[in-house]
């Protein structure tokens, strides 16, 4: 069949994902620019946060640090990044106050309070139950 015999029919407008005006259905690899941006911001703030609390032992100082507050303000977008840290890091960061603040959930049992590994496990389980992936 010659190329000239092939008839290209414009796709119905409703089949196009964003009515972009492109006449044919297209397959596009979407780069999750927003996710990359969030991860970049998160990592920047996290490094800054570590510098801000330094050698302080005070939990109040640690969770009141400006960069920690900014991470909390980023809201649910940072949850997968936190859950990844809890799941994969041998020593997760002090995320538990932020998690409770962002999600308003509290999956940690009273007996596990303070035990970082047990709390991390509880939160990872909660995340999986609630459909988060990382």
């Amino acid at each position, binding site marked *: 069949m010659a190329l000239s015999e092939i008839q290209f029919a414009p796709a119905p407008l409703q089949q196009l994902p964003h009515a972009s005006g492109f006449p044919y259905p297209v397959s596009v690899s979407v780069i999750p620019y927003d996710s990359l941006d969030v991860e970049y911001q998160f990592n920047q703030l996290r490094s800054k946060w570590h510098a801000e609390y330094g*050698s302080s*032992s005070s*939990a109040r100082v640690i969770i009141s640090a400006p960069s920690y507050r900014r991470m909390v303000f980023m809201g649910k977008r940072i949850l997968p990044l936190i859950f990844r840290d809890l799941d994969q890091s041998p*020593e997760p*960061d002090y995320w538990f106050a932020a998690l*409770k603040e962002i999600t308003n959930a509290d999956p940690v049992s009273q007996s596990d309070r*303070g035990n*970082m590994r047990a709390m991390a496990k509880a939160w990872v389980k909660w995340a999986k139950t609630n459909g988060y992936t990382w």
Partner: protein
Amino acid sequence: MATRGSWQLHEFPHLTYGNNANHKITSRKTKRYNCIAWAGDDIERPWWPQIDGWYWPSGISEQEDIPAFIQAFRLLGYAVCADGSLEDGFEKVALFAEPDGTPTHAARQLRNGKWTSKLGPNEDIQHDDVRDVRGQLYGDVCCYMRRAITPLSLHQRISRFFRCIRVLCKESYWTIRAFVKGVPRKNVFS
């Protein structure tokens, strides 16, 4: 152990380094416990009142002040005492606070008269004088407490033995995991 810890020099202006070092590092850095837990001989969880993710004994004040911290150490058998001098048959802790009375740190006296401190999420150190870690970050000592040293019971000895075994297993696990995955091993010390 390294001679220089993970802390910033300006945080502890009274620590000295090199040939005149008044401290030595005695652990890797870890977030698993903090100075209050370390002073109370607990290496399983960080202690602090009111904050989610930190342990605080139930039944005592949740206020972030020195009386609440004194109560917490009373639970461990300590009582307020006059000073931090070495007394035969007693071990001591020193509580640090900012000038406004906000608690910041705790150090524990060792049997050789020196002191041990966990510096936030960083390493534990042994320092010659209790006030070697004073400064803008930790303020200064505001209270000393002491308790009688009792020989470890059989149960405590067995617990410590298994705790050592557990730490060794965990260390090995994370080392092997890092080796298999080909990533740098993160510091773990529990």
